[in-house]
């Protein structure tokens, strides 16, 4: 059994925990002695880990990039290269036609973490050239 240190991805308390891994599957969570939780976890912290394993209880994980080539066309799995090229071209076309402020982005205040959000706002500001970036703090 492996143990990997993490912080709970649910509420804003910031509880430290170990994820327990067996045969590549996350099989449990144990409280660590973090500044806030002092070894304890709540219901979500203790039992909120197995979505990672793609249980498909509610909705499946996404493993591959997909696009719709036209509005209303069916979703289609494509390679990363094609997905990124397609999206980059669309964004550049929209920017050229309507200006950078015609593009809006929202960050994720959930599992991704601060570094992913930092890079997204840098992309928004330095690459697209707009301050149209926000997060769910308002809602």
């Amino acid at each position, binding site marked *: 059994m492996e143990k*990997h240190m993490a912080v709970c991805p649910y509420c804003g308390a910031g509880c430290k925990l170990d994820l327990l891994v067996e045969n590549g599957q996350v099989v449990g969570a144990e409280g660590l002695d973090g500044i806030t939780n002092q070894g304890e976890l709540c219901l979500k912290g203790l039992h909120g880990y197995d*979505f990672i394993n793609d249980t498909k209880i509610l909705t499946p994980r996404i493993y591959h990039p997909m696009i719709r080539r036209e509005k209303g066309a069916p979703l289609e799995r494509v390679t990363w290269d094609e997905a990124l090229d397609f999206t980059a071209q669309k964004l550049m076309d929209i920017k050229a036609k309507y200006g950078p402020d015609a593009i809006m982005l929202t960050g994720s205040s959930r599992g991704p973490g601060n570094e992913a959000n930092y890079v997204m706002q840098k992309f928004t500001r330095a690459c697209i050239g707009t301050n149209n970036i926000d997060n769910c703090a308002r809602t």
Partner: protein
Amino acid sequence: MSVSIPSLEDAKCIFLFGYNPSASHPIVSRRIVRAKEKGAKIIVADPRVIETARIADIYMQINNGCNIAFLNAFANAIVTENLHDKEFIAEHTNGFDEWWETIKDYTPESVQHITGIDPETMREAARMYATAESAVLGWGMGVAQQKQNVLTVHTLAAIACITHQIGKPNAGLAPVRGQNNVQGSCDMGMLPNFFPGYQKVTDPAMREKFAKAWGVPVEKLSDHEGYKLTDVGHNAEEGKVHAFYNFGEDPLQTEPDAQDLKRQLQGLDLLICQDIFMTQTCMIADVIFPGTSWGEHDGVFSASDRTFQRFTAAVPPKGECKHDWQIFSELSTRMGYPMHYEDTQEIWDEMRSLCPTFYGATYEKMAGVGHAQWPIPTIEHPGTPIMYLGGKFTTPDNRANLMAHDWEPPTELPDEEYPLILCTVREVGHYSCRSMTGNCRALSLLAEEPGEIHIHPDDAKARGIYDGELVRAFSRRGEAMSRAVVDERINKGTVYMTYQWWIGKCNNLTLHAVDPRSHTPEDKFSACQVEAIEDQVWAEQHMQELYTQLKNDLADLASAQDVEPTSQRQPQETRESVIV
């Protein structure tokens, strides 16, 4: 939060206003229970008899939508009884006399018809808070998701300032964050008015600094504030926004008036969703990027009390999932602004170097169960559990500006057709749009579709509704099927729904009315009606059919990923070389 979560247990008084910690933050709640055990006085003002109300020394069952009227009267009671700290006010605040001009008219008696609170009880609570050796004032969405939310926060802060319940140990303000990293998103500049570290985008010196660090001409960085998230729907409709890049959120589940938002988002030229699950919003996306999940990547989260902590990957990425920061970097590179990072530490160190408030929060300091609490300006700095010690505020003159406002009624008041108030609340076992918790075995057993609608026994009786039955809830915007819980712990005239449910989607009913300053929607107050469904057998069956249908639709759409790409294009050499 101006205080830290651990410091709550050493406060001598805790006043919770519109905050239900046992459902939304059980581990914070535990500190409040400990404070009580150590002798602290607990005050709760909430329309529901929440768990903390049961251990409260004073519980006030306030009317929905009364916040500023209540707080003004609370402040009035403090000053009228001469319990304010004149020395602290004189030395550390501005504008007391002007503030009092508004507050003086709000006696507890004069607003009793709005607050529903007996004046003597309110005075007793005001005495308890103002005279405590140290007091923490905590609030949650009961303040934030209301029409006058920013103004209410001004009022709460002023109450802490005039009583000197801020600027000393174990005292201050505790507005908690709902999601694990809302504080982090704000810290990282996922805001239309701030670069990372709360540095203004409208400040030329800041643009100069970031432009230099990011290697772009300063003219490239926009000099005006951007749009707010709650504006995306109508901006799309008005043709101002043509592309929306939605990262790890499911707005069609979590935003108000979801049906209208869906129509607006469908009109976009380009909707990009970067997620780990097929969500309702992903269903209408033009591009879906698979990111790695929590548990599959490293990083830092910011807790509600400004505490940075590291988390690490437990298992490798699945399928073709990429780390989110890699996806942004590769897209940016293709759009002519090359970005490349080796790992999250490289990103973090770049961020720290640009944010003086966070500079001392190194990965080394946060190793293992370590943490770093900002402001933490230097490597040697111990971090800041309690802000504004000694009454030194972060304003140009280091003094707090007292602000008072008149109460206004909520936007959509109940009437004959929609006589009930709908208030959306949190669920202990589920979280946000439920894509994560709904896929956890144990948690999915705790609560299921269509969720619950809590209704007072008198309101249930008047409608012929029995506990456990499926009911129809509807408003001017839309409707949802939910399961009635007849609940004597809530106030008459208001129903409460949690926002996790697809069939019982409260956001089909909620009103898209936002505070003009924060653009936060008024999720805590809209008008609705609830009616019994006579044929319960049909209702149960219909609910299951709708639920199964939606689950199947999501799975069907996701199954597009099981088909290998047809047009395998060769990666272009030049592009690869740019990325490397």
